């Protein structure tokens, strides 16, 4: 019985179609055996080669989301720069510039805009620098507080207390045509360009992080 179930497997492995009776010939001359083994190896090599050729586009497809930060980001308007009042920190939201039609409400992004003077702004990401939870602004005590692990930040975004290692992330901004614009499109995290902005040190006069 087991011979019967074995033979179809054997046939499918190689081009040489022999019957079960030929099993005995496996033990015969080395020439025949090595020819079969050579054909088997050829089969493996062919599959390996085709597999490799297929793997290249598959890997490229899998790595498609990996891009430079800048390729995801673009300038977004947060509204008239004059609509913000000096000394105030306000929650704004905007649509993420990089979207797919099936993103739904996940493409809404929130940020805090703080107008420091007539033409100086700081735009904070909503994400706590510890683990990314959304921080809340309390104007009465001039503090940002995180609901997850209790990270607290001062009004200028610098770390006040709790587990975060650094201050809040900021967006680059510019004022174009009277509009406050920020360079957004990427979730801020410790690995992207946001980490280069050191906001623990108070910005000097003329040290504007704006572009363009």
């Amino acid at each position, binding site marked *: 019985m087991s011979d019967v179930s074995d033979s179809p497997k054997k046939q499918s492995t190689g081009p040489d179609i022999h019957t079960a009776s030929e099993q005995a010939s496996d033990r015969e001359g080395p020439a025949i055996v090595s020819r079969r083994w050579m054909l088997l190896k050829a089969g493996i090599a062919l599959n390996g080669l085709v597999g490799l050729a297929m793997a290249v586009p598959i890997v490229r497809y899998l790595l498609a989301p990996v891009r430079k930060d800048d390729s995801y980001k673009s300038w977004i308007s947060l509204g008239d720069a004059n609509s913000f009042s000096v000394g105030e920190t306000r*929650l704004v939201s905007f649509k993420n510039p*990089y979207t797919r039609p099936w993103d*739904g409400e996940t493409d*809404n992004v929130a940020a805090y805009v703080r107008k420091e003077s007539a033409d100086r702004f700081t735009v904070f990401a909503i994400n706590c620098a510890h*683990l990314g*939870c959304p921080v809340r602004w309390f104007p009465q005590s001039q503090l940002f507080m*995180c609901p997850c692990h209790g990270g607290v930040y001062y009004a200028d975004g610098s770390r006040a207390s709790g587990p975060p*290692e650094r201050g809040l992330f900021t967006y680059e901004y510019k004022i174009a045509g009277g509009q406050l614009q920020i360079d957004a499109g990427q979730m801020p995290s410790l*690995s992207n360009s946001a980490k280069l902005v050191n906001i623990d040190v108070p910005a000097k006069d003329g040290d504007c992080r704006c572009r363009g």
Partner: protein
Amino acid sequence: MPRIKQTANQVYDWLERRLQVEGPIKEAVLHKVPRNTASWWYVFGSAAFTLLMLQIVTGILLALVYVPSGAEAWNSLNILNHEVPLGWFLRAVHAWGSNFMVAVVFIHMAQVFLFGAYKYPRELTWTVGVFLLLMTLGMAFTGQVLRFDQDAYWGLGIGVFIMSRVPIAGGSLVHLLLGGPTIAGATLSRFFALHVFVIPGTLLFLVAVHVWMVLKLGVNEWPMPGRLVRKETYTAEYNKLAHEDGIPFVPGAFWKDLIFSGAVLAAVGVCAAVLGPFGPSGQPDPSIIQTVPKPDFPFLWIYAVLSYLPPSMETPFILIAPILMIAGLLAVPFVASEGEKSWHRRPVAVLALSMVAVSWAVFTHLAMSTPWSPHMSAWSGDPLPVKYLQEATPLVRQGAVIFQAKQCRNCHSIGGLGGQRGPTLDSIATRMTPDQMRYKVVTGGGNMPAYGKNLSPPEIEALVSFLETLHPKGEPPAFDASQQAAQLNAAPVGGSTTP
């Protein structure tokens, strides 16, 4: 009747002639196991398998309605909960089945560890088991993401921040995790693929390998103190035990497996029917920031650990600890592949397991009571006990208003209400002098932000005079002994030492 029986036999023979499974199945079912392995301690592995089957069945049923799209997932969950008849029950069974599966897998692992069942020749069974544990946790996490609500969204955010700490490749890993630059539709799609195809496929394959080895190597015998495992003699000893004092696996040991599995399934059903499904909480709109995200039960302990790490330890710990934990688990059977199996003679193993269990329980409890999180609405929602304001001077009342309005309450509880991030302040005046309070309020320190910039000197004065009144009746407030002595000494001369 005889004719029906005859036909049935013919059908059976026809099938068996082609399938040829009777032999292997009989061999597996009737193989002898040592008599004392027919124990209630040996039922957790089969219960985990039963739960896996339950998860597959309920998962497929949920997939009939669930839409794995960023824009629609949350709505389809609500339709499952509220419109599809008994959709809520299916969701509840799947969710509770998940919790039970994680719990049973951990209990199974603890039992195997305690019984020394990972020792020779079952090292690889343990190794595969470690990966099964990781797959189970992977299912739990990806499943939480498919419940595409606020907790799922911000839980993914935590994943992003953990990934982003990886040196050099961090940014690319974040993009791979999310399928793009932000948590969005692409993220849900890939987590759906992981939860429904990739991880379950791997899980089933590894379960097959795991069970195959259990059948081939036999169920671990009951550990006896003094019966040492030696590679040279173990197999012969085990076979002797299984054959001389053995019983067929079915029904000898299997009836307990069946009854326990049935009980676990019933427990899942009761939990689902009584306690209902989990969520979904609010819709996954990141511009809604009035949210307090929390991970599901199996990951609460990590949530707690992450809040206690000092800032300088975050990155090294997050990146190195999981590798060490997994490596430690994988190393267990290779470090101790021979020797004692009995817990009576393995004090280090018992202590290690107890320590892990106690730490896990403590961190999970802490995560549930969240003493470190500020209570975001305490300042506006929790009233101040009236007794603290009776006979209060206007200055003290003003201080109480500042205490509420400046969110002090979010971290400091009074009268049992408010955050617990900072110390409870009901008797603060007995612990700190007014000068110490002033200093602490202005400069902060520890886990307290400095309020120096945000409070005017009169506000600080009012706040401190309120805090000074917070002491139990009959227990005097703290005072500065040296200052008092200086005042007493200075008094006869007629001058005041206070500036």
